[in-house]
């Protein structure tokens, strides 16, 4: 009896030890500029918590009246360095949207898994989609849209090779080609080459010339890899990230 109660106690103790880290959630929406209603903050927190469960990635919203003289990227880096320390995750996966209401700048960033799945190009695209809402003052709608895009893209590796449908099509194509080749060659293959019957001793070049006539040169601009607000970077805390930023 005594042993059972001890075990029970141990079990309950462990349960409470584990429980807080599962249920007690972190804050992900930092509306310092006060542009969202309480209901909107609660809705975004709920959605961010769901997305974390799904992707192990923290979707962070930061709004501020002022970046204290720092460029918005630097401000975001300092802010999230602090958060990363606080969260103390095994994997530092973050998708961050930062609004500077003073200068009206928006910054999107992806850390860890989100850096791979939300590279500069995708963030540029997402920023293009949400900027009209931000300009119109529909901040909640813009954040919600950012969460939706993040959810969608975290499912699709930017390299097409990791796309399930692409893999399926590739393996079916490969199998088809191999089996077709097997069926085609089942009746025996031609094994003589172009040189089999060539009489090397009598074959020769009697006369030849190669005269230079003219040349043409065409040029095209190098495709610039960075457009708009210029990509990602590395934070003061040594965390590398993808990024896209611009005015709204």
């Amino acid at each position, binding site marked *: 009896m005594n042993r059972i109660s001890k075990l029970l106690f141990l079990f309950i103790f462990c349960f409470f030890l584990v429980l807080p880290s599962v249920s007690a959630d972190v804050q992900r929406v930092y509306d310092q500029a006060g542009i969202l209603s309480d209901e909107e903050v609660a809705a975004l927190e709920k959605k961010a918590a769901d997305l974390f469960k799904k992707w192990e990635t923290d979707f962070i919203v930061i709004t501020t009246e002022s970046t204290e003289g720092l460029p918005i990227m630097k401000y975001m880096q300092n802010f999230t360095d602090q958060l990363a320390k606080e969260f103390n995750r095994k994997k530092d996966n973050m998708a961050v949207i930062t609004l500077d209401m003073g200068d009206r700048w928006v910054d999107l960033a992806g850390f860890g898994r989100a850096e791979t799945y939300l590279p500069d190009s995708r963030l540029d695209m997402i920023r293009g989609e949400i900027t009209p809402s931000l300009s119109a003052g529909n901040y909640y709608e813009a954040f919600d849209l950012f969460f939706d895009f993040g959810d969608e893209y975290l499912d699709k590796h930017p390299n097409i090779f990791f796309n399930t449908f692409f893999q399926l099509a590739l393996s079916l194509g490969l199998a088809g080609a191999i*089996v077709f080749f097997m069926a085609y060659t089942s009746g025996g293959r031609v094994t*003589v080459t172009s040189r089999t019957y060539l*009489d090397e001793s009598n074959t020769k070049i009697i*006369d030849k*010339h190669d005269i230079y006539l003219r040349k043409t040169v065409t040029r095209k601009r190098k495709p610039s890899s960075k457009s708009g607000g210029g990509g990602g970077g590395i934070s003061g805390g040594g965390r590398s990230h993808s990024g896209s930023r611009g005015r709204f």
Partner: protein
Amino acid sequence: MAFDAETGKLTCGSCGRQDNIEDFSDEFIETVFDEDEAKEYQCENCGAVIVTDGDTTATTCSFCASPVVLADRLSGILAPSLVIPFTITKKQAEEAFIKWCRKGLLTPKGFMSADRIKKITGIYVPFWLYDLKNDAEVKAIGTRVRTYTRGDYIYTETKYYDVYRKLRVDFCQVPVDASQKMDDKLMDKLEPFHYNELKDFKTPYLAGYIAEKYNYDANELFPRVKEKMSGPLNDYIRSTMSGYSSIQFKQKDIQTAKKKSLYTLLPVWMVYYDFEQSEHTFAMNGQTGKVVGKPPLSKGKIAAWFGGIAGGSFLIMKIISFIVTGGVF
């Protein structure tokens, strides 16, 4: 007495006597008859009357099974110049064919056992071996493309050249099958034959085998050999123009002449195989053992291979993504 593929000698199956064929006299092919004159022959062994079709030059007596060589169809303009004797015996041919059937990855299971070989026949198929001389004069525009980067621009520089070649391209001993009965594509796939075993023709090589005379003479088949060698000829011409990114031919004058054409008998084992109420015909190179011919294909095996390869490669790709992307699909 019949030709023995293992020793290359004329051998008597009963007493074991062996005659060297190279020393054999040509007396049998001295007499000249009109080629269509006789279709009935008398077996020298048992005296029975043998009826052959118009193309046969060697066969076996259907009564006593002794070899019959129809000398009149191997003389005059019909006299072969060269022959490659069989080096694969009937038994070896059968074994090689069974082995080949077992290797078939898409053939039905019942076919792979190769237990329904209906007939296996050694045939000397008439071929013409052509020596060809090609005089080619070619004019073309060649380009060399170079790309480089200066500042913010990528430059593509294309240089044009006037390319001229005057060539002599010879081919030797190109085989073209001269029998109407044989499928040209099948015979082309039987190549290559090794010419170091070419022998001057003597009738005893044919003993015990079936042989055919040619249906098309060397001039009639000249267009076919020209067509057959046009690929290799163009490959050679292109190979003399190395270093160009692209070649656009402006003018191509090719004169092909026949230097020599030799009437040659090449050894082929024909295998007739009954499978599911239909007969399948295969040919085997009687010198190298290479088998050609369309085997039946099993739908089940095709589906299994397709499914296996598709499933396997899909799984491998998934595993790679799993490792690279860190565990989440």
